[in-house]
């Protein structure tokens, strides 16, 4: 055996060398003897798929010097052409892999934050690079490309002849290039450079800016503005030599074509919400958007379609979930199960929706699984023509190379796939791939076929004649040796380099022991020798008595198993087919209504809701005809609860810790509409959440007030017209007291430093404003660079942005108020503010709200004086007080938190409930719309089983905008539906693969660890 294999390899190498290297150096001087084998080939008798849907059943294709010169039924064969008989073969245009890291420098390893070892020291910076190592827009794949023969061979084996290669480092990664997947040098393989600028949301982790998703988005946004400024400033500077010289940044200069939408931007998305984020940014700057998809686009198909971007689509389908034992299955979510069940239909659903896409091997752990996954996608509804287009014409058009590749037409590069059947059929083999007119063998069709029945005549053996039947594939023969009507199956039957090898047990056919034979096929007959078990040698010759006849394929076509369930929003658990209806009018009858408004608490009260708004509140109201009547007899109704400090529904970290000032980052960029915390909080009566940046920085990011419209898109969750705000943080967290021993050098490390860095930002914002005015009045010629960080700060000073400041100690609370007064604005809320009770009189006078924990204390030194009477003391001093959660758990029962104001400090129940309804609404300046049950306000209502302040009460219904987003009875049905879907899909998974013990890669919908908030930086859950 070993010998045979070696011989076969040698032959392969010989063949490769035998065909002339077509890609001859054009510039480099020849070394040694020139190689000038003619490069003219004619493929005859081939089935030619010219392009998707255009087929020549039996035709000829001619190429000369790497370019197709003729294709047609009767194309003339030039006299100088080498003719390849392609009978039984189908020719396809070479496939294009629309995203690859082939030949690119490896992705750098990310550093780690926390107490781990420091990240690797930064590489030496040379040239006019961007200050941030994540902005590598000037990188060009064409410059970085180094051919990778092994990777190219693997891709060619699947029919790829061309790939878009993409640099892998940074958020702005630079421009991609199209290369052919042949053997040549980079110079020869390049088809087209600077195809598109590639942008990711990926951060390296570690301590450097940015290290969060929202930080990455902020950097993208600022870089877009910087590139505009850079372009304009350079222009102005050129004609105004006396102006201060603008910095030259190569990575900004490289974005000029992006700014004019001449060069597309490819965002690399990680899930469907990430795609929508990309679309939002691209729209903001009018960029020409393409997206490298994730495979989960179908989950928000309409929105993805609306985004309008062509998608470079991976087909990385999840493995069968691990569900073998019931206990294993517990930890597999319905989301995981559904994703496994549905993802293979993603390409088909995109096709059906009319979304333009090209396919890629990207994100596959083993690119070799591409073909199998593609077949799966086709089984699940993707049309073969669409699949072929996504691998040929679509990427060729997108990349602007349709005149060169993507179809088998005259004048195009001779990139050709030779297959022995339909390219996407399971049994089809790709025989060879031609790149730039050069032949690369994959599984070449045997030139001589040894199969059939042979009659061998033996000399000096115990039998005189043998019948030898050879079946199966030439590469994997099955042999049977017969004599005297008895058969023996060969244990080895091989045919390599025209030599047949046979090993069989001859006991049953009169040749005792193991018999080995080798024969050479020449001139239609086999001649060779063999060795018997006793060591004696015999010779033989054989002639074919019957040709090989393939057995008909009797295997039945199995109908594809399609996804079991229809889409819900958000995907999987507790999703609905559509948003809850908004009835024209809803009448809540006979409840104890806690209005949190001037009407106080109404016993046996009614609430009428019309078109999502509260229209009447009172006793004995008449029911309008057609109204949906909710009998709330014995129940209590409150206004929807409002959490003034939440970190729910945020994707990725809520702290951008790369800098002490991060006013430019926006929670609004990272709303995670699928966060299960949203549904669970609805079930506790919460309707509005102020989603805040963490407290790692003196000035953190911009907050986002949302309504918990479960099922809606992130943009649809945003509270319309809510005043923008920003997170500040004072004390231990921004000065990194509890971050670990490594964190002792970032400014600030003291409370004094916190004050100064904030003051510095305020002054700098005023300087910025002045510089803008100077430019506007013509004093300066070069416009000041737009700085989103400083603009956000300026908005604070101009009263257009609310400050929500994390704080504990009275000194820092007082400090910030005085600082604000110095700059002429008011702090909107102090968050947590656990020593607010010590300076409540100053807070009241200043006008700051207090958004506090009801009773948290003792988790860190600065809260040693926290007391549960804080809320009552502040309230009694005239401060608008709310109780917040800072926790996905606590946010589920803010009503009983409010009860603690009754317990500690004797606030009346009616006033106490306002701590979680009207007061947070006032603090967020949304009290004109929500926070109480008053005519004209949004119908955000909660139906409780008893008093909302009782620990024994449960939330029964939660309404937002007159739509019922939570209903306990409906929840029970949803649980039953979830159990049903899980059971069906677990059975399916068990059937899909024996054992079912492959693990499912985690999807982005995996549950977060409990109470994900700012704890990383404080040493206590939340804050």
């Amino acid at each position: 055996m070993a010998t045979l294999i070696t011989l076969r390899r040698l032959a392969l190498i010989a063949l490769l060398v035998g065909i002339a290297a077509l890609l001859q150096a054009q510039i480099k001087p020849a070394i040694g003897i020139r190689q000038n084998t003619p490069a003219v080939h004619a493929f005859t008798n081939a089935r030619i798929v010219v392009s998707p849907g255009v087929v020549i059943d039996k035709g000829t294709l001619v190429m000369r010097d790497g370019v197709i010169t003729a294709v047609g039924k009767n194309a003339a064969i030039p006299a100088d052409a080498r003719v390849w008989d392609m009978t039984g073969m189908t020719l396809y245009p070479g496939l294009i892999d629309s995203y690859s890291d082939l030949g690119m420098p490896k992705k750098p390893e990310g550093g780690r934050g926390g107490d781990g070892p420091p990240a690797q020291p930064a590489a030496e910076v040379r040239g006019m690079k961007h200050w941030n190592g994540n902005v590598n827009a000037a990188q060009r794949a064409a410059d970085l490309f180094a051919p990778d023969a092994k990777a190219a061979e693997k891709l060619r084996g699947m029919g790829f002849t061309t790939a878009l290669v993409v640099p892998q480092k940074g958020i702005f990664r630079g421009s991609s290039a199209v290369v052919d997947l042949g053997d040549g040098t980079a110079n020869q393989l390049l088809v087209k450079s600077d195809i598109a600028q590639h942008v990711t949301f990926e951060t390296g982790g570690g301590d450097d800016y940015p290290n969060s998703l929202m930080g990455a988005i902020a950097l993208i946004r600022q870089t877009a503005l910087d590139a505009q400024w850079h372009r304009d400033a350079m222009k102005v500077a050129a004609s105004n030599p006396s102006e201060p010289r603008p910095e030259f940044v190569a990575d900004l200069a490289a974005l000029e074509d992006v700014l004019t939408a001449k060069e597309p931007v490819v965002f690399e998305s990680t899930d469907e919400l990430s795609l929508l984020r990309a679309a939002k940014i691209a729209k903001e700057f009018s960029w020409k958007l393409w997206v490298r998809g994730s495979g989960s686009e179908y989950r928000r198909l309409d929105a993805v379609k609306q985004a309008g971007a062509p998608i470079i689509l991976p087909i990385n389908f999840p493995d069968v979930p691990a569900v073998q034992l019931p206990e294993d299955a517990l930890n597999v979510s319905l989301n995981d199960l559904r994703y496994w069940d549905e993802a293979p239909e993603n390409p088909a659903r995109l096709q059906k929706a009319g979304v333009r896409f090209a396919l890629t091997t990207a994100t596959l752990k083993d690119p070799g699984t591409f073909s199998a996954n593609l077949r799966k996608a086709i089984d699940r509804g993707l049309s073969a023509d669409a699949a072929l287009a996504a691998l040929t014409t679509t990427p060729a058009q997108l990349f602007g190379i349709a005149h060169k590749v993507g179809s088998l037409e005259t004048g195009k590069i001779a990139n050709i796939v030779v297959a022995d059947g339909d390219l996407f059929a399971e049994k089809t083999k790709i025989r060879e791939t031609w790149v730039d007119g050069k032949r690369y063998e994959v599984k070449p069709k045997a030139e001589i076929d040894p199969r059939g029945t042979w009659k061998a005549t033996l000399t000096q053996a115990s039998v005189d004649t043998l019948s030898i039947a050879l079946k199966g594939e030439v590469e994997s023969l099955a042999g049977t040796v017969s004599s005297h009507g008895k058969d023996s199956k060969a244990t080895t039957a091989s045919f390599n380099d025209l030599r047949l090898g046979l090993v069989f047990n001859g006991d049953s056919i009169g040749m005792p022991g193991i018999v080995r034979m080798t024969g050479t096929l020449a001139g239609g007959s086999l001649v060779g020798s063999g060795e018997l078990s006793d060591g004696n040698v015999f010779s033989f010759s054989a002639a074919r008595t019957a040709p090989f006849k393939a057995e008909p394929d009797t295997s039945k076509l199995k109908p594809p198993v399609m996804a079991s369930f229809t889409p819900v929003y958000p995907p999987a658990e507790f999703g609905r087919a559509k948003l809850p209806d908004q009835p024209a009018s809803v009448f809540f009858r006979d409840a104890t209504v806690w209005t949190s408004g001037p009407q106080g608490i109404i016993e046996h009260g009614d609430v009428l809701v019309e078109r999502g708004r509260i229209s009447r509140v009172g006793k004995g109201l008449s029911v309008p005809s057609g109204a949906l009547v909710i009998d709330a007899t014995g129940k209590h109704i409150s206004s929807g609860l409002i959490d003034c400090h939440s970190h729910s529904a945020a994707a990725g970290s809520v702290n951008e810790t790369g800098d002490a000032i991060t006013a430019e980052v926006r929670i609004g960029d990272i709303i995670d509409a699928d966060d299960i915390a949203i549904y669970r909080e609805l079930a506790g009566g919460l309707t509005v959440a102020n989603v805040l940046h963490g407290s790692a920085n003196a000035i953190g990011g911009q907050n986002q007030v949302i309504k918990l419209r479960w099922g809606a898109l992130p943009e649809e969750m945003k509270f319309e017209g809510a005043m923008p705000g920003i997170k500040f943080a004072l004390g231990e967290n921004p000065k990194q007291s509890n971050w670990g021993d490594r964190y002792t050098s970032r400014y600030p490390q003291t409370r004094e430093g916190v004050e100064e860095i904030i003051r510095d930002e305020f002054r700098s914002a005023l300087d910025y404003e002045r510089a803008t005015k100077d430019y506007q009045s013509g004093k300066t010629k070069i416009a000041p660079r737009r700085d989103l960080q400083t603009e956000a700060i300026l908005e604070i000073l101009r009263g257009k942005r609310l400050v929500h400041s994390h704080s504990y100690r009275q000194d820092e609370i007082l400090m910030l108020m005085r600082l604000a007064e110095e700059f002429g604005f008011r702090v909107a809320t102090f968050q947590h503010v656990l020593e607010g009770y010590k300076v409540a009189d100053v807070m009241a006078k200043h006008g700051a709200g207090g958004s506090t924990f009801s009773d948290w204390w003792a988790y860190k030194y600065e809260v040693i004086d926290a007391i549960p009477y804080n809320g009552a003391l502040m309230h009694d001093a005239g401060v608008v007080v709310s109780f917040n959660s800072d926790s996905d758990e606590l946010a589920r029962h803010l009503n009983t938190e409010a009860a603690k104001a009754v317990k500690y400090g004797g606030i009346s129940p009616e006033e106490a409930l306002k701590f979680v309804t009207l007061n947070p609404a006032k603090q967020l300046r949304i009290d004109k719309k929500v926070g109480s049950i008053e005519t004209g306000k949004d119908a955000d209502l909660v139906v409780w089983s008893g008093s909302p302040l009782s620990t024994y009460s449960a939330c029964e219904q939660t309404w937002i905008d007159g739509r019922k987003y939570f209903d306990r009875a409906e929840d029970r049905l949803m649980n039953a539906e979830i159990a049903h879907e899980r059971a069906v899909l677990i059975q399916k998974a068990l059937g899909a693969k024996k054992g079912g013990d492959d693990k499912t890669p985690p999807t982005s919908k995996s549950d977060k660890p409990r109470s994900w908030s700012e704890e990383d930086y404080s040493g206590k859950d939340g804050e």
Partner: protein
Amino acid sequence: MKQTPMILAAVLLAALATAAEIPAKKQSGPIAIVGGTIHTVSGATIENGTILFDKGKIVALGSQVDIPAGATRIDAAGKQIYPGMIDSRTTVGLTEIGAVRATNDITETGTVNPNIRAEVAVNPESEIIPVTRANGIPVVITSPDGGAISGTAAAIELDGWTWEEMTLRAPIGLVVNWPNMTINHAWWERRSEEDQKKARDKQLNEIRGAFRDARAYMQAKKSESQSGIPYHKTDLRWEAIIPVLEGKIPVLVSADEVQQIETAVAWADQENIHIIIVGGYDSWRAADLLRAKNIPVIVMPVYRTPTRRWEAYDDPATLPKKLWDAGVRFCIAGEGGASNERNLPYHAATAAAYGLPKGEALKAVTLYPAQILNLADRLGSLEPGKDATLIVTNGDPLETSTAVEMEFIEGKQISLTSRHTRLDDKYLEKYRRLGGH
């Protein structure tokens, strides 16, 4: 604004009875609380009853009780009397400020520390103690944590001059943390599947190995009296496990996932020891097994989010009801921490909001923890012979707005003030001077 003068009155009453947080004097004569509603928990509730206690023990209770001459009478008309609540898992006394390392005495280095004893580091001066007891929790189980075997927990009375005086009973149980049995595929788990398995097996072997070694040690030490058997040197770790092997104390096994619970139960069976499941998130999934083996569960906490995306939002809250329905013995603990263990009653109330009968919720923080932790001879209900460790309230103690107005530990009336009330008083004075209040 302050609409409940009752609460203020109660605070004043308590303040008069005992000056600011000074440990109470031993009960010096019989005390009769008269006219209140007595919730015995173990038996019928007595309206307008009298409870008489002396020398720290309940002497009699009922609607007709002979009050000895010279007894102190406390009028409790309109008040409610309950046994003091027991928090069956805390670190009260072992920590002051979570983020300040110097104040934490919870986790010893290494992973096998059965000989660590919680009671010896309980700081009577901890500000957390008065805060906890003020909400009707006179007794807590204080416990070390961390590693595979953390040490032994102790029952601590929340009033006294020294830890010795405060220790009601120790050891109460040996704390074992069962390793995670399932592989975590979530994005935030950085370890590979293989590494997770290795970590799990290492921790499992540590636990199993420790008990086997302890058994061998016990056997070797016992056989020393026989002729020819040499002396075996001391191993404090294994000596601490002997009471478990002898069936004198249980193992408090922290386990949430069903695999953890099942493997822990199987291990207990193999080792023939008594265990209590702590945490028990999935315990209802193993209800039949737990009932068959008579293994109780300390449910902790009720306030938590479901661990799996597909689970019902209220699964943690309905757990006690499910255990009750299935006949599994259980009690309810708080968060297993210190500073906010005062919220223990609300965990129990939430279980009631989600299906557990209210009476059972009350038992889950009084009688049941006493029974499960072998304290029922002294605590958990109001019965003659038991400790006079009780609370007088103005309502249902599981309701947030209810105030604890008086509290007794072994007949001593304890202070209900704390750092919190002191600071409240101090700043009330500030605003009084400013003329605000």
